[in-house]
């Protein structure tokens, strides 16, 4: 396949390994967006972060751009960014609502996103606008399969 050919040529030229970890961890009860963010719903509140798959592919995070408390987020819309390997990458919200808390720890310790993507590396907490939106997200099994298929294509 052309995609594997150029990738292996690049890897050979650059003398790097194409190997990512063969798996990325998921948390069973969380929900997942196809842009690799997770959401943990607790009644009318939700906590949002990026997945283990995302942090592994992004590389070491050196900066997190956080939204203001009170900002409105919409499902699929960007609300912040992470910086890694000279790149800013948008973070998109899996759920619509209002930001009620941001993880201030990330300002001094952005690496928490890599070290603990599902716990200490959480990014925002949201007051949910429409709980039905969660139904459009993937569960952990669906998301694991999604990641495998995405990696296999490239």
């Amino acid at each position, binding site marked *: *396949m*052309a*995609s*594997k050919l*150029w*990738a292996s*040529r*690049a*890897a050979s*030229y*650059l003398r*790097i390994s194409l190997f990512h970890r063969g798996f990325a961890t998921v948390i069973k009860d969380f929900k997942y967006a196809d*842009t690799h963010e997770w959401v943990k719903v607790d009644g009318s509140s939700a906590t949002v972060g990026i997945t283990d798959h995302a942090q592994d*592919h*992004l*590389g070491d995070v*050196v*900066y997190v*751009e956080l939204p203001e408390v009170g900002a409105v987020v919409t499902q*699929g819309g*960007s609300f912040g*960014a992470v*910086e*890694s*390997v*000279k*790149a*800013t*990458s*948008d973070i*998109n919200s899996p759920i619509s609502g209002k930001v009620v808390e941001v993880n201030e720890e990330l300002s001094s310790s952005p690496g928490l996103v890599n070290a603990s993507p599902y716990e200490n590396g959480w990014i925002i907490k949201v007051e949910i606008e429409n709980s039905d939106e969660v139904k459009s997200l993937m569960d952990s099994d669906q998301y694991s399969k999604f990641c495998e298929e*995405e*990696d296999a*294509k*490239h």
Partner: protein
Amino acid sequence: MTACGTRNIGPPLINLVRLKGVPILRQLHLEERLLRTSLDNWCIINDGTDDPTVVMGISGKPVELLEIDSVIRDEIPVIRRFTGGGTVIVDNGTIFVTFICNKDAVPGLQSYPRPIMSWSSLVYRKVFQGIGEFSLRENDYVLGNHKFGGNAQSIIKNRWVHHTSFLWDYEISNMGYLKLPKRAPEYRQARSHLEFMCRMKDYIPRSNFISRTIDAVGSHFLVRSMELEAIMYNSGTKFKPSSRLLRKQELEEAKFDSQTSIAVSQSLQM
């Protein structure tokens, strides 16, 4: 569709915009607008900018990266851009090349930082074939072990931008406005700016670099030339770019905060 019913899919189209001497802030605003509001692929080449300008990445802190006293004294503009990465000082000796692409423009390319960076190095390897020992080293473009291009990226849901400032030439005195960065690649080995970098003009004529770059782009895309006037700001598009010029007051506040913190630290040690 061909007569036998199979579909010929050629390379993706890319719009090539050639600029000369456009101010770097205007270039950054154009790039960010095209990234966020266009559905096309773009290659922008800006052959030099105007006045010497410092350009920091999104997370850049002036007090850590700049000799602030000199920057303020000499009124050097300081911009914070929308992409990641480090700090550069650009002028009319800098050549800018930018790719803005849909995530499926390059077959099999995952839109994450390292794959995009690797792909870009394949483009420039072609540019420098037979000219110098080009490689991508710890995310820098180098000839031998000397950096000659700084690059940075921004990735959104379905698109990405990869842009590079190439040092075709530079003023030694301008490098004095930049501190040695705290975050530096290992291969730099604490070398000063002048020992670490090289000038592209020692390897290739300016116009050759640009024409070879366009040829290299043509090996990945179907290139369509476009004039800047054709994509000038559409007043109907509500888009506010985030790259901005830092105010003098911000630089002075950063200097004051730094001096205050040093004074407090020294008094605590007494």
